[in-house]
């Protein structure tokens, strides 16, 4: 009997791993132009993906800060006179959670309403004669989580007609952010597959040149996984090499952008992510994506040559 029962080693020997690594690196330098083409494909993709990712993550934080900036609108009873309003204001200010109280007259409110409705809002101008709106106190709380608590306390006060804390606006913003996030994800996935396609094509060209080698390997009894390993590693190196430039470029760009944008945002509630932990995360993600693209691309192209 031939030695057919001896199964292929599942645990690879260290010398074999070394051989695969050597082979894959040799192949990179032997096909320098193809290496360059593949690495460029990964680089371009990852720059785009990286920029998208950075923008989206910042959009997310902005959304979060906006969420934290919810205000309470206290509608004042129409029956309240100037004096009553002052007492109410004083009462509002004594609530421990409250940070600030701002008065907005019903005329101001109507103007805002007309402005916010645009063309259609002009119809509301008729109400200027007989304004149905209330005067409003705009209350901000010290902590966003206190909003509900403060609102319920305010509701119990005299001359309070209605208490509103604009959930609908926040929800609208979140809808917008969610939509833009979906667009971003679709774009990133699209770019990802384009890069895999590009890589698998460039690697395919190097493999066609090495078809003979694969054929001979098969002839002397190499298993498919043995043949695949150097290509797997080659894809991995390509992906990692391709992610270096995007990581450097995006880091520098973000560093500069942060320095430029951050002082301008001072005083507003909007913040962008600080360089330190964020860029390391981005670098890690780009490296991982590069490796994934490279490996996937090379394994896809080698698959074809392993049949029969």
């Amino acid at each position: 009997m031939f030695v057919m029962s001896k199964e292929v080693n599942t645990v690879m020997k260290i010398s074999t791993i070394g051989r695969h690594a050597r082979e894959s690196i040799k192949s990179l330098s032997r096909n320098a132009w193809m290496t360059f083409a593949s690495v460029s494909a990964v680089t371009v993709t990852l720059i785009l993906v990286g920029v998208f990712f950075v923008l989206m993550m910042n959009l997310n934080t902005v959304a979060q800060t906006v969420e934290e900036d919810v205000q309470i609108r206290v509608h004042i009873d129409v029956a309240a006179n100037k004096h009553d309003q002052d007492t109410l204001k004083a009462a509002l200010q004594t609530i421990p959670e409250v940070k600030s109280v701002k008065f907005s007259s019903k005329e101001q409110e109507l103007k805002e309403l007309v402005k916010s409705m645009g063309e259609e809002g002009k119809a509301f101008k008729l109400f200027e004669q007989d304004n149905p709106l209330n005067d409003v106190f705009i209350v901000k709380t010290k902590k966003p989580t206190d909003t509900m608590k403060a609102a319920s306390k305010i509701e119990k006060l005299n001359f309070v007609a209605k208490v509103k804390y604009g959930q609908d606006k926040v929800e609208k913003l979140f809808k917008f952010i969610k939509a833009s996030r979906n667009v971003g994800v679709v774009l990133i996935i699209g770019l990802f597959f384009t890069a895999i396609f590009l890589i698998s094509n460039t690697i395919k060209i190097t493999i066609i040149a090495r078809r003979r080698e694969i054929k001979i390997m098969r002839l002397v009894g190499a298993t498919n996984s043995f043949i695949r390993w150097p290509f797997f590693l080659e894809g991995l190196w390509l992906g990692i090499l391709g992610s270096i430039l995007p990581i450097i470029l995006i880091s520098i760009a973000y560093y500069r952008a942060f320095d430029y944008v951050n002082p301008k945002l001072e005083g507003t509630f909007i913040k962008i992510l600080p360089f330190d932990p964020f860029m390391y995360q981005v670098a890690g993600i780009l490296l991982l994506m590069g490796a994934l693209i490279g490996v996937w691309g090379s394994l896809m192209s080698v698959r074809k040559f392993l049949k029969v």
Partner: protein
Amino acid sequence: MHNMFVILVRFEEINRKLSNKCYSTIIIWVIIMIEMQEVYKKYPNGVTAINGIDVRINQGEFVYVVGPSGAGKSTFIKMMYREEVPTSGTILMNGVNLAKLKMKKVPLYRRNIGVVFQDYKLLPTLTVYENVAFALEVIEAPQKYIKKRVMEVLDLVGLKHKARMLPNELSGGEQQRVSIARSIVNSPKVVIADEPTGNLDPETTWEIMKIFEEINNRGTTMVMATHNRDIVNTLKRRVIAIEGGKIVRDEQRGEYGYEN
């Protein structure tokens, strides 16, 4: 089981033949290495390359496969190293049915045979040593063993001193010897050669044949497709002639039988 049965039958046949010739009982152990039963091969393009072949080749035999171009010789050889699969029929290589061999097992099967080609099929970027060691690296043999074994077979083919050279620095005959070294480095039971001397001059051809004879003398079964009538007619061995996908002649110590 199958093998044992056949062995017994052959054993009786031989004894009968021998006793007819008035020899005393001599025990000869015969193991069937290659056996084809009703093998047909039709390619997807409609060409029938093998049209019903039955043949047995015993362990230790040296067999020439001859026949005109396009007669099915190449397919016959290719089926032996499982490059082609028969459309129907059975091919038993030392008991392993190649017609039903699973894809996953093909690499394992190939480790038990050696194949030599007309165009050597060496890797131009590897040295002589690396080309031969390649066949052992692929099966993940220990480095120490690889070193010892590769030098052993390079010595056998007389190329020990050129181990560090690249294939294109060697002559055609030397390259073929490297390829032979690679084919036997796994200690295969069968060596299959497809026109191994097709590209070589007569003098080199004889050097190559001497190596094949040596390999055969050590007990390895040799199957060799050839167009070289001088070899066949001088080194008299079993000759299988294939024409139109069929075996038309099968003789011990046969002649080449064709005009070149």
